């Protein structure tokens, strides 16, 4: 696994939830209220169920009950060929399908010891970064909606639509794209692809400023997010939390820089890092990441090389016996695929390391002692997708 998870911090600082834990004496010791938030709840982002133990509105403990969206994706993989499993990974983190596909394809390529041609790598980077933008936009809209600002949702969805249009033109689907194939990309870019990407970057820059106008300085937003859901960098490492949540806590860790894949080393971009590790910083980090993604897209479009988009891949993908782990930086954190091959056309075992699932573990640490309204804000700020948590 990643270097960061092998750090000196042991898991001992992580307190496990016991619902019977004694409440802190500073509060009214009234009867505890067990509140089942979800699985049908407007802001648990799907079918997450959080059992809250409340003292008044103060959260004394939480327990996440997951699995309502479990479809056994990893098991399905054992009965599909490598190519046939490719569309399924889109359906895990369905708001960042391109990143999922990228991670899977690269993992299989690693297993097969082949590399996608440079043009394919550039296309992959462009689409993956567009997808990061789309994912962050969706996150921003829903997160703001959780905190009660209903309007940013519509602005972000409007702008996300432009990304989806590019996806649709490129690979024929908007959400579950199935854009990449093992060994490269199936599709050559369509006519006007570069221009559309450039125009999109130009179009979306001021829009991000608009989101910021509505939220960044708004005193209600600041009050609702500053100091809420704090988690320290060490705790993040201990819990295995990755992605913007980790970076907002001040740990500069981004697989795109640390273990570059798909030619990310060729692009010039910064890793935004927060200091406070609260919801507001995570918001700022993600907004900054959106701007960095735009930078990457611009560079990738400028440098888009000529050449084939598909490496030489055998018609029947039949890797040698072995295993491989490949992690990429998905919009939500480290998305890893661990594939064990028994030499047949079907993987012996695929294990996905979903960022949402791992990040969700930190929920309890973040919301203890906070209020019910903060639970909603923190669930939003972790940016989970239940398709990925439950798989």
């Amino acid at each position, binding site marked *: 696994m990643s270097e960061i998870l092998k750090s000196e911090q042991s898991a001992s600082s992580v307190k496990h939830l016991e619902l019977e834990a004694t409440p802190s*004496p*500073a509060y009214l010791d*009234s*009867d505890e209220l067990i509140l089942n938030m979800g699985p049908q709840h407007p802001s648990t982002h799907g079918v997450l169920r959080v059992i809250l133990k409340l003292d008044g509105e103060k959260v004394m403990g939480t327990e996440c009950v997951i699995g309502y969206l479990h479809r056994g994706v990893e098991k399905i993989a054992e009965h599909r060929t490598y190519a046939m499993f490719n569309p399924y990974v889109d359906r895990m983190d369905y708001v960042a399908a391109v990143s999922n596909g990228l991670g899977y394809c690269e993992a299989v390529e690693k297993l097969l010891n082949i590399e996608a041609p440079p043009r394919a790598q550039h296309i992959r980077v462009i689409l993956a970064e567009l997808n990061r933008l789309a994912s962050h936009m969706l996150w921003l809209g829903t997160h703001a909606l959780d905190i009660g600002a209903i309007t940013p949702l519509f602005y972000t969805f409007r702008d996300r639509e432009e990304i989806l249009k590019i996806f649709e033109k490129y690979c024929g689907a908007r959400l579950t794209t199935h854009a990449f194939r093992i060994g490269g990309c199936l599709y050559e870019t369509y006519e006007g692809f570069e221009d559309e990407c450039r125009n999109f970057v130009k179009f979306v820059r001021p829009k991000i400023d608009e989101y910021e106008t509505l939220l960044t300085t708004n005193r209600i937003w600041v009050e609702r997010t500053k100091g809420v859901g704090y988690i320290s960098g060490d705790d993040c490492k201990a819990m295995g939390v990755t992605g913007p949540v980790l970076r907002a806590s001040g740990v500069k860790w981004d697989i795109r820089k640390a273990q570059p894949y798909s030619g990310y080393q060729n692009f010039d971009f910064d890793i935004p890092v927060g200091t406070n590790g609260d919801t507001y910083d995570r918001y700022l980090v993600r907004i900054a990441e959106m701007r960095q993604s735009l930078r990457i897209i611009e560079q990738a479009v400028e440098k888009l090389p000529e050449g084939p988009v598909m490496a030489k891949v055998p018609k029947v993908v039949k890797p040698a016996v072995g295993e491989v782990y490949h992690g990429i930086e998905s919009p939500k954190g480290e998305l890893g695929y661990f594939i064990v091959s028994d030499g047949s056309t079907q993987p012996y075992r695929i294990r996905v390391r979903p960022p949402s699932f791992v990040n969700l573990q930190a929920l309890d640490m973040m919301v203890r002692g906070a209020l019910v309204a903060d639970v909603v804000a923190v669930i939003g700020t972790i940016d989970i997708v239940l398709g990925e948590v439950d798989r």
Partner: protein
Amino acid sequence: MQPVATSWFFYGLSAVAIVSALMVITRKNPVHSAISLVFTLLSLAGLYLMLYAPFVAGVQIILYVGGIMVLFLFVIMLVNIEHNLREEQFNKQWLVATIATVVLGALFGYVYYHGKGFFPAAVPPTPEQVNTQQIGMSLYTAYMFPFEIASVLLLVAIIGAVVMAKKRI
């Protein structure tokens, strides 16, 4: 200015007041009692209005119904109702209570019978317009001292409540 249908309103309001007051003490569920109390207070406010005391009526509504009863309900809602429902009503003091009620009633009757002079048949009603101002004038001139004493008392009560509610300050 002659009020419309005075006696009707009076009897109606008094009936509501008495019935809901009875409900306050007979309902087992404290929330039902509290809501009955709201009705009692509202009908009392109506009675104040009929006595040409609109300001008192307004204060009755805004303070008792709007303020105090909300807090009452706030507290009662947090009480475990099931526990109260199981409790036996009219514990073991019904005999004492009956005696006390009879004695009080007798006292009222006696005072009313012997002190008829205190209840003149018709007091000229204060004109409605100046009522509120009169209260203000009286409070801030003649009754300034009791008024201030009362506010200090309330302050003490507030601080006391905070001290009692908070175990550690």
